[in-house]
Structures are given as C-alpha cells and as structure tokens.
C-alpha cells in the first residue's frame, strides 16, 4: 500500500537534507520544529556532529505558538542567537507543522536579516519529502546568496583553446550519500588523475569561499540527485555545463573524464550513463544517479547488466531507462525484486528480498549510521566487492 511499510526503513527527510548541505559553511541553520528533527538529524543523518561543530538548531515551536501564530517568539529567538553566535548566514526551514499552518519563513528571514544585518533565507521544506529536495534546495539558495558574478567567463573557449587545466566543481556530495572520507579522497584522486583541477567541492570538506567561487568552474560534475538543481542553476546563471555520473570503478571513471572534456567543448550537459545501460537480472536499489552510475560501471568493468530500482521516490528520474523503475512502495518493490537473481542495496532492504542473492551496499540516507563501518568505497577503484 502506498506510503506504508511493514518492515523497511525510510529515507532521511528534507529538513535533514538542508542541514547536511549547509553544515560546513559557517551559517546558522534552524528547523522550525517542536522537537525531534534536531536529534534525528544529529543522531542518524549527520556523521560530522560529534567531531565538527556547526550551528544547527530547532525553534522549539509549541502548540500555543502554532495556534496563536506567534512568529514573534521565533524571530526574537533567532535574533538573540544570531547576535550571540554571529553566523555567516541564517537559513530557515520548516518541519510539518509550520508547513501545515503556512508559516511565512521568507518573511521571518527578512525580519531577521533586517534586524541583524546577517544574510538570511528560507529553504523550502515540509518534513514530508526526502533529503534530496531539501539538500538540493539548500544548495541553490546558498549559491543564489553567495556565488559571485564571473565577468571572466568565456563561453567561446573549447578544449583546444584551453591552456590550463579544466576547473571542476563537484556537486551533490553530502554524507547522506557519501559518508566516507575516502569517497571524497577518491573523487579528488579521479579529478587530479584526469588532468582536471578541483574548483569547489560543494557539501563536504568545504567552506563558504567554495560557494562564492562556484562560478569560476569550467564544468560541474554531479554525483547525486542532490546536485542537479544547483547544476541547472549554475548552467542558467553562468553557462557552466555539467556531467551527471559518479566515477565508480575504473572504466566508467575514464568515460566520465572524457565526457567532462566533451561537455566543456560543446557546452552541453551530459548524462554519462546514457549509452552504457542494459537490462539484466541484477537490481541496484537506491538514489538514481549513484545507482545508474554503478550499473554503468558494472557493465564496463565486470560485464554485469543491471537495472536500477530508484527507491527514494525523488531525484533525477531522467537518468532512468525504460527498464528501470522508480518505486518507494514496499509491497510493489518486494514483488519487483522477485524478478532478479542478484540485488545490491542497503541492508535494511534485505527483509523484502526473498530469493535473490543480496549484496549489501549501505546507504547513510536510508540506514543512518547502522552500517557505515561496513560501507565500501567504490569510487575510482576496482569493483572487487562483487
């Protein structure tokens, strides 16, 4: 039954996505929430919480505030905290109840910015969507506020004219999709080995300067659905083209490297999985860009044909092929999975995989910190986990 699950987990929500996206930029991110969003995020969705400080708070809204429309308290509390903590910016997002009663977070952000002089904005959430939309919206909002105009951008340059190394932004990397430090290191290794230069990595191991300088890049590499909206925004605003795909395995990584050069030369956006997918008896569960990338890498490196079963219910569905499926319904998914001989997915999907061989691929956005210790890093490496 739609929206119902007997035994599987649920993906991180949009509010966690916002916090995860903005974690390292020195701002103060506040979820307008009674209680729970904060501890859920900091326990299950944020592996950096213990070791790296970030101003992530909730408003502590009560039923009285909600019924009486007492936004003044929230505004006053934001101003008190901002004056004490002096964040670089203030980002607000809504949990279900403020979304339900129509709290005007844009107006609250405006009031707070007017009073404190600190750039303030809201990020659209309602606590009922996945981390993908929350993080994607957050990246776009922070870019709108801080990314500099780039008067030097030269749209006519192509590869043959380019004398220095291509500058690459990595978009869509948050711990919800890539919790391992080694994933970041491998992406960097891929960028360097391919003869490119990292301009900004958006999401992890980053700072506000990276957002400011996003417009300096030549090409954006989008490694999850979380980065697509920002990639579109940067394409619209600065004509920076993008390539979708995670450099899993070796051969597929090389292919992505070629596509990045092509994307720069042609100024077109490229789906790096476009010609590399075949229907098969292996299923990959998870977020669409990562899953489609893994399917492509398995085909190139191992000759394995795999279908993608996109299970978040949100994200980049354009990357899916006709033989793939987007499904966040447990029962339908359980029935679909009977068609496959091998299933790769988060261990919390295992109870609905009955006959197939199950290969665990922990996904922080689904199982939180439960299996982080056993999560493999597949980026720019031999796919020997199979």
């Amino acid at each position, binding site marked *: 039954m739609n929206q119902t699950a007997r035994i599987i987990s649920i993906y991180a929500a949009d509010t966690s996505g916002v916090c995860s996206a903005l974690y390292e930029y020195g701002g103060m991110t506040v979820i307008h929430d009674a209680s729970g969003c904060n501890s859920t995020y900091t326990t299950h969705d944020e592996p950096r919480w213990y070791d790296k400080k970030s101003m992530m708070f909730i408003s502590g809204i009560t039923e009285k505030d909600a019924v009486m429309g007492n936004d003044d308290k929230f505004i*006053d509390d934001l101003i008190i905290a901002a004056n004490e903590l002096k964040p670089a910016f203030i980002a607000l997002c809504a949990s279900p109840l403020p979304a339900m009663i129509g709290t005007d977070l844009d107006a609250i952000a405006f009031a707070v910015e007017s009073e404190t002089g600190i750039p303030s904005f809201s990020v659209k959430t309602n606590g009922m969507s996945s981390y993908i939309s929350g993080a994607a919206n957050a990246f776009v909002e922070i870019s709108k506020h801080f990314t500099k105009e780039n008067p030097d951008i030269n749209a006519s340059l192509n590869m043959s004219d380019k004398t220095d190394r291509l500058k690459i932004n990595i978009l869509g990397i948050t711990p919800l999709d890539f919790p391992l430090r080694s994933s970041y290191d491998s992406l960097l290794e891929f960028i360097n080995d391919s003869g490119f230069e990292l301009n900004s990595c958006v999401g992890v191991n980053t700072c506000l300067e990276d957002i400011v300088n996003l417009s300096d890049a030549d090409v954006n590499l989008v490694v999850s659905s979380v980065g697509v909206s920002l990639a579109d925004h940067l394409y619209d605003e600065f004509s920076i083209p993008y390539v979708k795909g995670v450099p899993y395995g070796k051969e597929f990584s090389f292919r992505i490297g070629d596509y990045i050069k092509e994307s720069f030369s042609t100024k077109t956006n490229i789906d790096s999985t476009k010609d590399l997918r075949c229907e098969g008896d292996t299923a990959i569960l998870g977020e669409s860009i990562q899953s489609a990338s893994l399917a492509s890498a398995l085909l190139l490196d191992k000759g394995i044909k795999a279908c993608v079963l996109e299970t978040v219910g949100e994200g980049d569905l354009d990357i899916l092929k006709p033989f793939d499926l987007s499904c966040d319904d447990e029962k339908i998914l359980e029935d679909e999975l009977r068609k496959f001989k091998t299933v790769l997915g988060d261990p919390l999907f295992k109870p609905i995989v009955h006959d197939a061989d199950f290969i665990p691929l922990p996904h922080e956005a689904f199982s939180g910190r439960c299996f982080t210790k056993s999560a493999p890093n597949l980026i720019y490496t031999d796919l020997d986990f199979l």
Partner: protein
Amino acid sequence: MLKQISLNENKIPEGIKISEIDFNNPFHDGLHYNPPARGVWNIVHTGMLIPEAHQIYVCAQGCLRGVILTAAEMNRMENMSWVALREKDMWNGEMESRVVEGCSHIVDEMEKHPKCVLVYLSCMHLFEGCDFKVISKELEERYPDIDWVDCYMTPTMRKSFEPDVMMKKSLYSPVRKQAVDKNLIGLIGCDRETAKSSEIYTLLEKAGMKMWEITECRSYEDYLSLGKASLLISYLPVVGYAARDLTSRLGIEHLAIDLSYDEEEIISNLNSFSNAIGLDEKSVKETTAVTRSNALKAIKDAKNIIGGRPIAIDSSATPRPLGLAKLLTENGFNVKRIYTDAFSAKEKSDFIVLCKLIPNLEIYPSMDPTMLFASDEITGSESDFICIGQKAAYFCQTRNFVNIIEGGGLYGFDGIEKLCQLMIDAFNNPKDLKLTISHKGLGCESCL
C-alpha cells in the same frame, strides 16, 4: 529573572551561579541545541518493553526517520512499521482512513497477528482535529484479536503533556483488571531494571510479596498480569499521569516513593511503602540499619579516592540533580556544575540549601545554542571533571563519568552506595566518551 547565557571571548558559554538564578525560569527558552549524548530513551525504546507488541508510526517522513532508525539500531525492525503522511494528506480529509487502512495493510502483511499494536499519531493529526476514537473503534472491529493502543508523538504539546509522560500512560493502557493477587506489587514508570539489592525488594521479601516489573515480562501474558496487582508503586516523576489512569481504571492504589538522596525523605518513603505492604517501621529500621551504614561508608570511600576533583551532574542522569549535589557537597565533594534546563518543583528545598552551601555552583543549560561551544572535543583536551551523566561528561569532555540515565535503577541508601561505587569506577576506569554516549538508548541492544 530569566538568564541569557552568553559566550566569553573564547566562545565558551559561562554558567550562571545558583545564587543568582531564578528557580522557576532558569534560562531563556529560545532555539534548541542537541548535544550528542544518546543514552536517554525515547518513545520507541519504551514501547519495545511490551513483549510481543508491534509499533506503527503514522507521521511525516522527518518524524518517521528518527523512530524507524531507533528500532533499526536496536535490531528490532521486525517490531516496527510506518505509514508516511504526505502533503496531500493534510487537505484531502482522509487522515483517519489513512491510519486505518495503513495499519490494516501492515497487519495483513504479517504472518501472525501481534497481540498488541501501538499506533503512534502525530502533531499533524492533532492539528487536523483527527478523530482518534473513530480510528480505534474501526481497528478494534476489524481486528478484535489485537489490543490496539493509541500512542502519541506530539512534541508540540510538550509544555502541557510531555511525550515521555504520554508514553508512560500508553505503556500500561492494555492492562485490564484481573482477580487481585494480594502478594503482587506493580512497580510502574521504570524503563530499566531496579537494583534487586535496594530496600524496596528487601522489604517486599520480608512481607512475603513479589514485584511486577515490566523489564522482567517475557510474554504478553506476563505483562498483562499487572492487572492482578494489589498496589502500584513508582519512584520516577514521569509516571504520574499513567498512575492516575491505572488507579481509575483498575481501582488499584498508587504510592509514589520518589527517588531521593535525602536521608529523611528516603526513610519517610520507605516507611510509607512498608505500611502499604503491611510491615511496620521497625522493618524499615532493620533494613536501613545496614544499607544506611553501607551508604555512608561508600560515600567516605568515594570521597577519599576522588578527593577534590571537580564534579558535574546532569539532569538526564537523575531526576534529582540538586539533591545529589547537596548530598555530595555535604560530604565534602567539590561539586562545581549542574547541567539542567529546568528545576523540578520537588527540588526547591535542595535549591535553597545549595544557594547557601555553594552559592557559586554553576548552572548550565543543555539545550541553549551557546552550549554548542561548551565542549572542546576538537583539540582532544580533557578536563579533570568527574561527571554523573552523559551530557555533563560531554560538555566537560571527560572520560571519567558515571554512565546512567533516570537514576540508573538505583534507589534508597542502597542506591547511594551503588552510585558511590560507580563514581569510584568512573575515577579509576576512564570510558571511551564518544563511543559510550553515541549508543542510543542506554541498556538497549545496538547494531553500532
């Protein structure tokens, strides 16, 4: 007068002296910070105490995420299901039917019906004016073999009905009146086992009676046998609402014998308990003659070992942090800090004593945004604090701490003795702070 905690020039928050703080409203209740101490139980942990029960949460994705992963970390996903609310559900007038149909689908998918299903509704249902009675009635009619229990995940109501208080009420609501067993006493409100060496058990044994504790129930029938109890007792404060519900439904008397660190209050409570189970005060004197002297000796031993090391206590460790601070201070310990966001009315007298005894005792909140900067785990520098409670240990960045929540199942003079032993252990055996406090739900199984 509300106090606004502030940062010093090194961005470290400064505590408020107890002598300068308003007992009723110690801190400004503004934005909330969440320290990474995960030992305190939530409504999932508590609900899992009912044997052979299943939990279904009906709420938004953001709310579901925390409870589902609580169950996942406990390795209890087989006892957990969910129904997600989407934006359209707010407007289509089908809130009740979504609960009913969602729960029905889940139960139909199970190989065997559970004996009891806890259905958790959310703030959204509350604000929609959702008809909870219609839901219960429909589910009971469809599945008469299941005890359906309405539970609430409504944190917006926390100022009037804390989720923990509501959960304690729901926890006992399937219990029905049974033929009274005069020898059975029900201990309610404790999520964790109470030390069997405490005076409560000694007195019970003297009276030839036995205790019902939810932690010892292995089957749903064991659990329901609370309905046979001749008396209900409790010693933790969150159980009041549940106790009132049980006494009115089952006609069983309830006796609150609050956890305390004050000698007079301990004896008074034990006397009340003793009278209620048909013993006289002599029994209490006999029992406490030994435990009291053991407690005094343990306090001395702990003081000799710990010496002048600073001590911090947080309110997640015990419902009476001020009472514990008073006991320790009166016995020569160097109590420097208390971490609490509010004071219990029952601690007023301890507060007054402490204001005179150690007026410079620093009171810190745990949720104020400035507390983000209270700890210095980045540089790895440790303080020399001995802490009681996970949050105090985190804020003070010490590996020397007593790892308990909600009193730790320690009661009476025996509890004081055990606590002193734990303090000595904390002094002698440093713990891995990050690993220890990351474990969600102290005492529960964890997959981490």
